[in-house]
C-alpha cells in the first residue's frame, strides 16, 4: 500500500517535471522564441537594476548638455531636448513598460478567467456573460481603451485599467471554449459524482487543465498591452511628462525630428524589440504546448 502511494507520488512528480521540461526543450528548439526570451530577460534585468545601470536619474535636466547625439561622452545614447540622459530614460522606461504590461494583463486575466469559467461552466450564465463580452468586442481595437480613459481621465494607471478591461472579453472567450471541452471529460464527471462542489471542480480540476491557452494568451497580450500603452501615451492619453514612458518619449521627440532624430528612433526600437519578443515567445509557447490550439 505504502509503496503504491509513493510510486503514485513520484509518477506525478515525474509527469509534472517532464511536461515543464518538454515545453522548455521544444521552445529552445525554436530560434526566434529563444531570441525573444533573451530580449525579455534583458528587459526584466534592466527594469530591476535600473538605478545600478544608469549614472543619471531619468528626469535630471542638464540644460548645458541638450540634444547631444548618440555616442557623446558620458551619454552614449545622447540626451534629449532638456539635456536628460536617453539611456537612463530608456532603462527606466523598460521598468514602466514591463510593469504596465504585467499589471494590465494580470487584471485582465483575473476578470477574463473568472467570467470565462462561470460562462463555460454554468449554462444559465453563459448567455448573459457572452452577450456582454460581445458588446465589449464591438469596439474596435484601441477605441474601448480610449472610451474608458475618457471616463477615468488621462494617466498611466488609468491606461492599465483601460487595457485590462479591453483584455477581458478575449480572455473570457478563450477560457470559456476550453472549459466547454474540458467539462465533458470523464474525470470531471467523476468529481461531480463524488460530490465535489462546483467551485472545487472549477478551480481545482478545470483551471489547472486549461492553463496552456491562458499562458499563451497572456504572453501575446503582453505585446498588445505594451504596444497600446505606448500608443495611448503617444496620443497624450497615458503617461504624462516627464515620465520616461517610451511612447510619450516618441511624442516629445517628434518636434526635434530634424535636429535630434535619436530622440524618436531609440524609444521606437525599444518598443519594437520588446513587442516582437513577446509575440515570438507567444508563438513559440503555442507551438510547444499545443500546435492545434485555437486562439480565435
Amino acid at each position: 500500500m505504502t509503496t503504491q502511494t509513493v510510486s503514485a507520488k513520484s509518477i506525478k512528480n515525474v509527469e509534472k517535471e517532464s511536461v515543464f521540461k518538454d515545453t522548455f526543450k521544444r521552445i529552445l528548439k525554436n530560434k526566434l522564441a529563444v531570441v525573444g526570451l533573451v530580449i525579455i530577460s534583458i528587459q526584466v534585468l534592466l527594469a530591476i537594476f535600473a538605478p545600478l545601470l544608469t549614472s543619471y536619474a531619468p528626469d535630471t535636466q542638464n540644460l548645458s548638455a541638450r540634444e547631444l547625439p548618440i555616442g557623446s561622452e558620458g551619454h552614449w545614447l545622447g540626451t534629449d531636448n532638456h539635456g536628460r540622459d536617453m539611456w537612463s530614460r530608456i532603462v527606466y522606461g523598460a521598468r514602466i513598460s514591463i510593469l504596465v504590461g504585467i499589471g494590465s494583463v494580470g487584471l485582465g486575466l483575473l476578470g477574463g478567467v473568472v467570467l470565462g469559467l462561470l460562462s463555460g461552466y454554468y449554462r444559465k450564465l453563459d448567455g448573459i456573460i457572452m452577450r456582454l463580452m460581445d458588446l465589449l468586442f464591438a469596439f474596435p481595437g484601441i477605441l474601448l481603451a480610449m472610451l474608458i480613459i475618457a471616463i477615468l481621465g488621462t494617466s498611466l494607471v488609468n491606461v492599465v485599467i483601460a487595457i485590462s478591461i479591453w483584455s477581458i472579453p478575449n480572455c473570457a472567450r478563450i477560457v470559456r471554449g476550453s472549459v466547454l471541452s474540458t467539462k465533458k471529460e470523464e474525470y470531471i464527471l467523476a468529481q461531480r459524482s463524488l460530490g465535489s462542489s462546483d467551485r472545487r471542480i472549477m478551480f481545482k480540476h478545470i483551471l489547472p487543465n486549461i492553463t496552456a491557452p491562458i499562458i499563451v494568451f497572456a504572453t501575446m497580450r503582453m505585446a498588445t498591452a505594451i504596444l497600446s500603452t505606448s500608443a495611448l501615451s503617444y496620443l497624450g492619453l497615458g503617461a504624462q511628462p516627464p515620465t520616461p514612458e517610451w511612447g510619450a518619449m516618441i511624442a516629445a521627440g517628434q518636434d526635434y525630428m530634424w535636429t535630434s532624430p535619436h530622440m524618436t528612433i531609440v524609444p521606437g526600437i525599444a518598443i519594437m524589440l520588446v513587442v516582437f519578443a513577446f509575440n515570438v515567445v507567444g508563438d513559440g509557447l503555442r507551438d510547444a504546448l499545443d500546435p492545434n490550439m485555437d486562439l480565435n
Partner: protein
Amino acid sequence: MLNLIVSRIAQMFFLLIGISFIVFMSMHFAPGDPARIIGGPTATESDITNIRISLGLDQPVLIQYKDYLLGVLQGDLGYSYQTNESVNEAIATRFPNTLNLAIASMIVAIIIGVFAGVISALKQNTWLDVFTTTGALAGISIPNFWLGTILILIFAVNLQWLPAGQLTAPFWTVEGMKQLILPAITLGTGSAALIARMTRSSMLEVVRSDYVRTARAKGVKEKVVVFVHCMRNAMIPVITVIGMNFGFLLGGTIITEQVFAINGVGRLMIDAIANRDFPMVQGSVLLVASLFVIVNLIVDIVYAFIDPRISYD
C-alpha cells in the same frame, strides 16, 4: 441563408442599442458637469441651472438616454459643448478622410499581405520564407505611430518624394494619392503582416491536400495549380481576416490621423476626449463602433456565401 441574414441583422440591432447605451452611460458617469463646461468659469448658479434644464440634464438618466437614442435614430447626434457645432456636421466633414485612409490602408495591406503569404508558402523553409515570416512578425510588433514618424523623416523630409500627410487634395487626383501613400503604409503594415501569416498557413494547408496533388499528377501547369486550384480555397480564411481587419483599421486611423495631422474622425475624438466634449466623443465613438459591427456582419454573410460548408446554426 435568408434565416442567417435575418438573425444576424436582428442581433446587430441589439448590439448597436447596447453600444449606444454603453457609450451614453460612460459619458454620463465621466467626471465633469456638462452645464459647467458650457457655462464657463464666469457662469452663476442660476445660469448653470438654466443650462441644465435646457439640455434636459435635470431629467433622470434613463429619460436622457431615451431622448438621446431617439435623436440618434432620427440622425441627430447633438451639439458640441465646446463650439456648439453640430456633431453630425463635424463628423460628416471629417469622415471621408477617415474612410479614404482606411480603404487605402486595406488595399496596401491586401497587396503586400497576400503576395508575401503566397510566396512564403510556395518557398517554404527557404531564406525567402524566413525573411517574410520574420518580416511579418516585425510588422505586427512595430508601433505604427513610430513607423509613420520614421517614414515622414525618410520620404518627406530627407528624400522629399512624398508629402508628409494632411489629406487636402481629393483622393482621385495624383496629389491626393501621393498624400495617402505614407499614411496608408503606416496604418496598413500591421494588417499586412496578419494577412501574410494567415495566407501562408492557409496556403500550406491547401498545397498539401489531395486534390492539389491530383491536379499536379494530371500535369496541370504550376501557375494554374497555384492561382486556380490553391488560391481559391486558401483565400477563404484570408477573407475573414481581411474583413475583421477593416474594422480594426477604422479604429487604427485614430493614431495615424494624429501622426499625419489628418483632419479625420479619430483626431476629432482625441480632441473631444481631451476637452471633455461629451456629445462629440459619443457621436464619433458610436459611429466607429457601429461601422465596425456592420463590417463584421457583412464579413460573416460574405463568408457564408463563398464557403457553402459554413453553417452558423
